[in-house]
């Protein structure tokens, strides 16, 4: 790409999370955009601060301390923009936000298995919690529906239904119930509404709801025909509505949006945008999977050659929602990830105590182990929930396993703050349980959403920053599926380096093997499965592939899919320790 195409502007990206606020500087170095440095500070959306601006300024101050650049005015503590001749300031700001309470959402559609599902998927592409659903199968009377909406005090209503030019009468009846419910709420508490249904009714929607709701946005129909679902335009409108909602809810969001000249987006939306873009750029038909475990939510974005599946799950967030995690999963399912010999009660109390202080971090090894076990289960659940919404061509051929992917990218505090890169990789492998052969990257500075929003300032920035090695390559993972007993040999692997030397591994079922291959290097990996095991080339198929290195090298995961975890706690803990040791302890 010619350097002249790059605008020579520095960009400050700010991400306001529920627990941490990050400030990241991107600048042009030798004609290419580079990630320069990042600074972070605890977020201040919550009391007692109640103003995200304080955390933002502290993060920028920490960024200044790292880079030596002056970004904030000495006297007014305001951002210096554009960059000044003396080198201070930045040319542009972009921002993302995931802080804020889960958005209480009412989902409305006609058919429970068609438009309601589409509306639900749309609602789940942001930080929402569905509190009520209305559809034709709802047997409540209109006044009961109305009271249900009033009682649930939604922040948002996502309204779909009717193919373009199709049913209208039924939707109008639902509109009346929603309009009346909104009318009954105090003006300042009325929900924002996104209409993404039959386009013929857009004018009626404006007339019926326009004067009674907090804000009304009309999007293209997310279900233009029974066979077609198109969430992209709706996702965009929803992202803009979410930003407006956060402006209403949280002090300082207005100012940040002003700094960003309107380039403020929900973090998960920005993450989804960049994953869709990258999956298109790299023509990934099998899919790029990006997961992020944060305090506000666990999000899963999967791109399939430009087609995006995006799921944001506050119920699997590791912050204030942790107290509710046991409503989503059994405590034993979290316990299975623990190397510690502790009682269920200890884990239960940990969940509740941590939910009181979402931004606190584990200070001891035991607490870190608990935190990592919870993160594994949260990610495990989030990925399985999202996987159901993958496009048909990306659904797995075997039930209970993931479809093969081209690449996995992990980010968010629980993954990137792992005590070692090996632990970060093991968390991803345990929770996702990928199938096939794929590189795994770590977004240690949580850059991905920022790249997603920065793309609106510069199309070149995301690609140049990614290609400059802003992410840490953890290695290439080879997952082995086999019907074997623990300890049976299932694979012979040989790695031939560029200098002709070789490394070999005899892989046994239930184990993790590592063949060293430094970051930035490639090598030829020959795989010879035994007992019709599938090492990503097909059952029993032998072959060789070129693989890229990483911090750990080539990781052969022969622990089975789904992962075979012994029920006996003593044996399970022993095995967990062994796996942990295999990736560096």
């Amino acid at each position, binding site marked *: 790409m010619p350097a002249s195409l790059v605008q020579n502007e520095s960009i400050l990206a700010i991400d306001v999370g529920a627990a941490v606020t990050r400030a990241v500087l991107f600048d042009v170095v030798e004609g290419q955009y580079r990630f320069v440095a990042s600074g972070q500070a605890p977020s201040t959306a919550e009391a007692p601060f*109640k103003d995200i601006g304080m955390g933002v300024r502290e993060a920028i101050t920490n960024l200044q301390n790292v880079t030596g650049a002056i970004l904030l005015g000495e006297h007014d503590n305001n951002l210096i923009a554009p960059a000044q001749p003396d080198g201070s300031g930045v040319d542009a700001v972009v921002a993302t936000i995931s802080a804020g309470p889960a958005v209480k959402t009412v989902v409305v559609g006609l058919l429970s298995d068609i438009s309601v599902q589409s509306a639900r998927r749309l609602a789940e592409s942001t930080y929402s919690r569905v509190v009520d659903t209305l559809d034709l199968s709802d047997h409540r009377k209109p006044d009961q529906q109305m009271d249900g909406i009033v009682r649930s005090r939604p922040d948002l209503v996502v309204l779909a239904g009717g193919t373009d030019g199709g049913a209208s009468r039924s939707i109008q009846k639902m509109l009346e119930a929603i309009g009346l419910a909104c009318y009954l709420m105090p003006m300042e508490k009325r929900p924002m509404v996104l209409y993404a249904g039959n386009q013929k009714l857009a004018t009626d929607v404006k007339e019926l709801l326009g004067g009674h709701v907090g804000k009304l946005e009309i999007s293209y129909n997310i279900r233009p025909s029974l066979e077609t679902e198109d969430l992209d335009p709706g996702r965009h409108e929803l992202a803009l509505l979410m930003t407006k909602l956060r402006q209403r809810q949280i002090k300082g969001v207005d100012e940040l949006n002003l700094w960003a000249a309107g380039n403020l987006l929900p973090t998960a939306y920005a993450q989804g945008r960049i994953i869709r873009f990258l999956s298109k750029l790299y023509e990934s038909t099998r899919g790029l999977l990006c997961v992020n475990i944060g305090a506000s939510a666990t999000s899963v974005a999967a791109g399939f050659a430009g087609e995006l599946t995006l799921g944001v799950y506050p119920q699997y967030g590791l912050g204030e929602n942790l107290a509710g995690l046991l409503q989503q999963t059994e405590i034993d399912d979290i316990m299975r990830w623990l190397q510690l010999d502790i009682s269920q009660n200890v884990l239960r109390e940990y969940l509740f105590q941590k939910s009181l202080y979402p931004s606190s971090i584990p200070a001891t090894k035991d607490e870190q182990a608990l935190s990592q076990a919870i993160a594994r289960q949260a990610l495990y659940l989030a990925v399985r929930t999202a996987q159901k919404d993958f496009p048909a061509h990306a659904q797995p051929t075997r039930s209970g396993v993931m479809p093969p992917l081209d690449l996995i990218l992990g980010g968010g505090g629980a993954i990137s703050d792992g005590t070692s890169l090996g632990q970060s990789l093991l968390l991803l492998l345990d929770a996702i349980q990928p199938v096939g052969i794929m590189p795994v990257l770590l977004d240690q500075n949580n850059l991905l959403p920022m790249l997603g929003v920065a793309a609106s300032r510069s199309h070149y920035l995301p690609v140049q920053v990614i290609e400059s090695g802003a992410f840490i390559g953890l290695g290439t993972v080879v997952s082995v599926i086999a019907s074997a007993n623990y300890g049976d040999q299932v694979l012979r692997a040989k790695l031939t380096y560029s200098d002709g030397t070789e490394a070999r591994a005899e892989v046994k079922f239930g184990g993790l093997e590592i063949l060293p291959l430094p970051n930035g290097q490639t090598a030829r990996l020959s795989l010879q499965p035994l007992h019709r095991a599938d090492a990503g080339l097909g059952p029993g198929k032998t072959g060789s592939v070129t693989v890229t290195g990483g911090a750990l090298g080539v990781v052969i995961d022969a622990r089975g899919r789904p992962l075979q975890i012994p029920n006996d706690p003593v044996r399970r803990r022993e095995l967990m320790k062994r796996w942990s040791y295999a990736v560096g302890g």
Partner: protein
Amino acid sequence: MLAPMLHVLPLATIIRERTLPVAGKVNAHVNQHVNPTDVIAEANFAREHVLLDVARTFGVTAGAADKMIKVNQGDRVMQGALVADSGGLFSRSIKAPRAGRVMVVGSGQVLMEVGDTRVELRAGLPGIVTQVLPERGVVIRTAGALIQGVWGNGRIDNGIMVNLMQKPDEILSAERLDVSLRGSVILGGHVRDQETLRAAAELPVRGLILSSLLSPLIVSAYQMRYPIIVTDGFGAMPMNSAAFRLLTTNDKREATVNAEHFDRYSGNRPEVIIPLPVSSEPPEPNSFETFAVGQTVRLRRPPNIGMIGMLSSLPRGLSLLPSGLRAPAAEIKLENGETVLVPLVNLEVVG
């Protein structure tokens, strides 16, 4: 770095907003002295609505139905009152299914609110009304001891506080709740069974101030009609020494237990207020500070969870923690003399 505060104050000016959940009538005025049980505002609000579809019932257009409706917006109607009449030779009518108020009339429909519920808002704490929030409530100022907690069951009451705690890790059991404690606010300790919560309800008590609660008891705690406040957290945790000292030295004083939910966005949190006579107005507490050497802090996570100490140094940069994580941290000299390294995000300043 900015530091959140935990208020455990022997004497402070306390300013609290007390508001109705819906718009209503405020009975108090500025400069009025109020007692905890005074009703300062009241409201009627309907929990349910009834939609009468006149057009559909009569099988006419919305416009025609509007002409048949006999009630107007704002009308109060009794059960059985005439709402609409079709007129003509074979006249049909629609009557109010329940007593209520007409909210909206139009498009051939009538929307009524029914099932009026009266809400009375009590002052909750003694003090002076400094501001009236029209239709919503008041702002009350008082002076006294303030002890914040981490969890509350959403209720409020007040009464004479009786101390049953000899030590911070005291366990409160049902056997200790005898009839002499009826109508009191109990300073308890750790509760680990449902029987204790039930025994307190049967007396009944005016409130429970606990150090900690086993998390499986949360559902039961919500069902209790008296306020329950937890000062330190879930599991078997002793009360932090600052709260323990302050609460136990105020034994037999009147205390307001406002066990409201910890709302991390509004900043409302459960608290105990012990009004005290003052000759001059004490200072208002800060809601946050910046971490600094010499501050008294409370540890929010293990190890040493709930312990109070003094911030003795703030190492620059990131510190390596026993967990393997790196984070900005502080050295804390605990009350037992031990010095420990604690990440700043696991600390709150007590004051």
